[in-house]
C-alpha cells in the first residue's frame, strides 16, 4: 500500500537525521522516543490507519504527482512535533512516562533542543533532493512562521488559564494559533514543494486550517470523554458552551468544577454526564463536523483546479 511505502521512506529520512547522535550516550534513543508515539514519524503502527505524518507528502503528491523530494520537510515537521511534546511534558509535569519525569528536566530539555536543531537541519536536506534554494527558503519561512504562531498561541493559552470568562471566539483563536496552524503548515509546505501556483498553495493551506481546527476540537472532546481536561479544570469548547447555555443546578455544578474549584467539587463522571446531557458534547461534535465539511468543500475546489485529492479525504472520514 502507498501509505506503508511513504511511511517507510519517512522513517528512513528521520533515522538518517538521528544517526549522527548514536555516539552520544543514549541521546539517539531518547530522541526517538517521542517520534515513536502513536501517529508520529517513527511509529510502528500501520500508516494506513494513522497517515498524519504523511500529510505534507500526500498534499505534494496530490498536486505534482511526486513526493520523495518533500521527505526532509515531512521529517522536519515530525521532529518539531516531537520536540513540542517533550517541552509540553516538562511544563505539565503530569506524566510519569515522560522523559522529564524519568531522566530529569535537564536531559529532557536537551533532547527537545536537539530535535529542534535537527528539524532545521532536515529542511536544509531539501537541497540534496534537488529542491531549489528559493523554495527551501520559502519552506523555512512557512515552518518558522507557523511555529512562532503556535508558540504565541501557547502563550495566550497559558495567560488565559486563570481567566474564567473565556469565550468561544477566544477559544477558536487559541485553537488555531497553537494547533491548527501546524496542520495548515504541513499542507502549505506540501503545496510549496509541489511548486503549485499561489492560489493552489492558499487552497491547500486553507484545507489544513480547517482540518487542524476539526482535529483540535476532536482532541478537546476526547479531553472530556477521557476525563483528562475535567481533572485539570481546563475550559474548552464543550465547557464554554455548557457554562453559557445552562442554568440552575447544572450551571452551579459546572462552575464549582471549572470556575471555583472547592472541596465539594463534583466528580469527573458527574461532570462528564452534565456536559453530555446539556448538549455541550453534541454541540462540539457538530462544530468539529462543520470544519470537516469546510475542508471537504475546499478539497472539491482543489480537485477542480487539477489536484488529485482522494487520499486527503482519508483525514475527513
Amino acid at each position, binding site marked *: 500500500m502507498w501509505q506503508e511505502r511513504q511511511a517507510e521512506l519517512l522513517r528512513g529520512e528521520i533515522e538518517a537525521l538521528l544517526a549522527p547522535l548514536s555516539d552520544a550516550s543514549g541521546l539517539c534513543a531518547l530522541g526517538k522516543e517521542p517520534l515513536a508515539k502513536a501517529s508520529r514519524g517513527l511509529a510502528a503502527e500501520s500508516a494506513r490507519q494513522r497517515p498524519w505524518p504523511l500529510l505534507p507528502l500526500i498534499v505534494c503528491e496530490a498536486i505534482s504527482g511526486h513526493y520523495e523530494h518533500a521527505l526532509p520537510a515531512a521529517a522536519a515537521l515530525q521532529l518539531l512535533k516531537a520536540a513540542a511534546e517533550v517541552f509540553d511534558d516538562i511544563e505539565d509535569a503530569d506524566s510519569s512516562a515522560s522523559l522529564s519525569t524519568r531522566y530529569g528536566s535537564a536531559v529532557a530539555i536537551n533532547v527537545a533542543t536537539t530535535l529542534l536543531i535537527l528539524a532545521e537541519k532536515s529542511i536544509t536536506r531539501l537541497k540534496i533532493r534537488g529542491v531549489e534554494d528559493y523554495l527551501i527558503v520559502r519552506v523555512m519561512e512557512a515552518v518558522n512562521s507557523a511555529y512562532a504562531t503556535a508558540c504565541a498561541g501557547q502563550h495566550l493559552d497559558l495567560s488565559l488559564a486563570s481567566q474564567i470568562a473565556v469565550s468561544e471566539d477566544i477559544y477558536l483563536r487559541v485553537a488555531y494559533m497553537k494547533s491548527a496552524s501546524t496542520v495548515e503548515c504541513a499542507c502549505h509546505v506540501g503545496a510549496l514543494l509541489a511548486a503549485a501556483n499561489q492560489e493552489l498553495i492558499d487552497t491547500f493551506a486553507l484545507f489544513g486550517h480547517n482540518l487542524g481546527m476539526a482535529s483540535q476540537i476532536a482532541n478537546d472532546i476526547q479531553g472530556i470523554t477521557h476525563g483528562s481536561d475535567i481533572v485539570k479544570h481546563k475550559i474548552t469548547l464543550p465547557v464554554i458552551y455548557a457554562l453559557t447555555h445552562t442554568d440552575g443546578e447544572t450551571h452551579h455544578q459546572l462552575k464549582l468544577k471549572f470556575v471555583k474549584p472547592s472541596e465539594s467539587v463534583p466528580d469527573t463522571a458527574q461532570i462528564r454526564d452534565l456536559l453530555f*446531557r446539556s448538549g455541550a458534547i453534541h454541540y462540539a461534535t457538530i462544530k468539529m463536523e462543520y470544519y470537516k465539511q469546510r475542508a471537504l468543500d475546499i478539497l472539491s475546489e482543489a480537485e477542480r483546479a487539477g489536484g488529485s485529492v482522494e487520499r486527503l479525504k482519508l483525514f475527513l472520514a
Partner: protein
Amino acid sequence: MKSQTVQELVKKVFGDEKTKRQFMSNPDSVLARFALTEQEKRAVLKTHAKLGLVTSNSQQLEAAIDPTAIWHAPIP
C-alpha cells in the same frame, strides 16, 4: 460559522422535549426554523446520521473522534 444559531438549535433540541422528538424523527423540519448555512446544515445532519443525539459516551463517538484527534500534539 455563525455559532450562535447552531448553539440555539442545540439548546432547543436538548432543552425542549417536543423539539427533541421532532428532531429525532425529522431533523430537516427542525433545521428549517433556523437560519443555518449549507455547511452548518450538513454538519448537523452528518452528526445526526453518525451519532444521533450525543447524550453519552459510546464506541461510535470515540470512533468518530479518534481519527481526527490524532494529529494533535500540543505546543509546550
